């Protein structure tokens, strides 16, 4: 599997409520995902070959007494409701990840970082090993751009975990397409070539950068389109150009 979509982040003002609402809207189940300090995610598996939406938000409001740029961004992009705030691509080998890191002249967030405080963890304490790039002073998501992940072991991948049962639950069969802002050329410039863009099931709407919609196939069910504004609709990426 070459460069592919791994997961999509949906920023939420209230992840419990957003997960419940999305499951009612779509019939897609979710599971109580992972947490790190003041942030947590609920995870919506989307089916093979292993995609998911992470509904992410701040769950410790006391932590907001110490504000930083990332927390402020999360508040700003969720003040008017859910916004897609991250497109996360995946590769199959550490060499491919290294190639992207080199392209971006970046380090890699290593999967074997022993510091638990550096990783999201599940409710039972399990930390899913994952590596990613680029490593930047602020996440490239704030600029509406994707980053890339590599999992040394996909057997505990977030897309494969059991969901809470819900009424009228559907079985997802994978992402059919993702609607993003910008143009193919803008993304090619970021990824280092049009060949990478062509590997991805993307539709470009020419609007501000980021994810605008996700279409998911489902067994014995019409395709499910989840449409939310991109984070860049709430906070322009131009704010983060320095």
């Amino acid at each position, binding site marked *: 599997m070459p460069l592919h979509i791994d997961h999509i982040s949906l920023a939420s*003002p209230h992840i419990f409520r957003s997960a419940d609402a999305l499951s009612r809207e779509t019939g897609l189940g979710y599971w*109580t995902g992972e*947490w790190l300090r003041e942030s947590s995610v609920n995870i919506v598996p989307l089916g093979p070959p292993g995609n998911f939406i992470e509904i992410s938000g*701040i*769950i*410790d409001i006391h932590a*907001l007494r110490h504000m930083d740029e990332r927390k402020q961004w999360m508040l700003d992009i969720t003040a008017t409701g859910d916004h897609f705030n991250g497109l996360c691509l995946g590769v199959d080998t550490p060499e491919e990840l290294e190639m992207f890191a080199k392209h971006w002249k970046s380090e890699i967030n290593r999967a074997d970082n022993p510091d638990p405080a550096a990783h999201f963890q599940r*409710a039972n*304490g399990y930390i899913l090993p994952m590596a990613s790039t680029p490593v930047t002073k602020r996440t490239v998501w704030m600029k509406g751009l994707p980053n890339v992940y590599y999992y040394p072991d996909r057997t505990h991948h977030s897309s494969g975990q059991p969901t*809470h049962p819900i009424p009228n639950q559907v079985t997802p069969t994978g992402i059919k397409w993702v609607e993003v802002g910008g143009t193919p050329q803008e993304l090619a410039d970021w990824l280092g070539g049009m060949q990478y863009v062509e590997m991805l099931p993307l539709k470009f709407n020419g609007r501000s950068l980021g994810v605008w919609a996700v279409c998911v196939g489902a067994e014995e069910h019409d395709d499910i389109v989840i449409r939310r504004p991109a984070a860049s609709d709430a906070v322009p990426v131009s704010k983060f150009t320095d």
Partner: protein
Amino acid sequence: MAVMLDHIHLGCANVYATAFDLMKASRLGHYDGGFTSAITVGQKTMPLGGGAYLEIESLVDPFATADASKHPWWYTRAIAAKSPVFGGLCLRVDTMEELNAIAKRHGGAARLNVRTPSDGPQVKFWEAPYSSGADPWQSGKPTWCCWENRLYRHPSGQPVVNAPGLVTPNGVAWIEMGGTKAQMQTWLNQNPDDLQMKFNGKTPGVYAIGVRTDAGDIEIRRPSAAGAS
């Protein structure tokens, strides 16, 4: 009238960290309890055996709770104490007639408590006595609840997240309360010995619980929210 312990409340700043840390220390499992409808509170539920559970709660909505004056009293005290705090305890009766009689005796009424879990229909129970005044928990007094015909989905009976080394809880062996036995007997109209309560003479409230498990008893001790005022 059969009255027994239903749940004990633990308020905190971060429901994820508190539930995880307590699981690690006690080896008692927990699961995602969902969120309450009224005050944007998230919950993790820790079954204690014997039909009782610990409800661990914190605020999880930075927008609906931006006004600090609207924060639940126990949340404010958990922040001040820099620790999870016991908010209170709730006893269970079998019928609404019993619950309404208790509410009447204390000059209050029964109100519906609703929570949206992550899996399925809303969790609902009636609790009393409530009036326009302060929450009885705020002065360290237990409340009562009734699940009507919904005990089959009681939070104490739901599966926990699988984690290594968990023990099996077999019920609450004792509850350490502030105040005196005489004060509690007056409030409960029942001998507190029936509920395995012991008293430390401090400000009324919950201070600790002992939980029987298949690997021995576990003590969970935290400040009392009522005592932390």
